[in-house]
């Protein structure tokens, strides 16, 4: 492709990009926006967590066969250590109360 033609096509691309927002007008009703955002937070977060969990589960199904026994044992040890530490922490917290 000749340099000039490339330059012209690149200009076309820039124009297409620039025009891509012209078809729609966006209006914010700022007087109610913040309240609406606050009201939606909880549901949004629940949905986001649900979506992440689904993603994790499906990825795990795909890859669990590739995880070696050594890795499984190592993760299991880590989880057990974390659980013990968490238990200790909770006990201390209860005592302080």
């Amino acid at each position, binding site marked *: 492709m000749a340099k000039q033609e490339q330059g012209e096509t690149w200009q076309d*691309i820039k124009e297409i990009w620039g*025009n*891509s*927002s012209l078809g*729609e007008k966006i209006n914010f009703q*700022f007087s109610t926006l*913040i309240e609406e955002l606050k009201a939606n937070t909880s549901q949004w977060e629940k*949905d986001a967590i649900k*979506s992440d969990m689904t993603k994790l589960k499906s990825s795990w199904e795909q890859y669990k066969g590739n995880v070696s026994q050594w890795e499984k044992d190592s993760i299991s040890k880590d989880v057990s250590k974390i659980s013990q530490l968490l238990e200790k922490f909770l006990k201390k917290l209860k005592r302080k109360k």
Partner: protein
Amino acid sequence: MQKQEEQLFNQILEDNKTSIYRICRIYAVSPIEPQDLFQEVIFHIWKSYSTFKGKSNISTWIYKIALNVCNRSKMQFESLNNKTTRLESIQFKLSETIPDEIEEIKFKALRECISLLNAVDGSIVILHLDELPYKEIAAITDLTENHIAVKMKRIKKILLDCITPKLK
């Protein structure tokens, strides 16, 4: 959020809405609508606003959020069965300058060609088309300016090869 902060937040949205919408439009592939993505981006901007430390330019931060939300949207929306929350406070109206059929075809061609790129390259070209300097693109993508320059050469070639026959 204090009144003054609220006003600043509103101003940020107003100043950046066109750029955000352009990004949403290029990433929205049926059944995801650009309006859905736009609302999702606005929500994430609001959610992260309190953590914005002002270390970077506000538009750099907005672009980062918009690209992150849009890049991971496909998988998220699929697992949510396309269920999204609508914010009544954001209204979309057709403007007087409705793009004609040819412009729509050209836009679809650009979207198709950008979708051939990986997530990072797609983000780079979008930011470049939005006329951001390499320095800012580097800040958004966590790459060096030199790396951006090298990548842009390759991305440009891929895009031109893809779009040229479609625009003829």
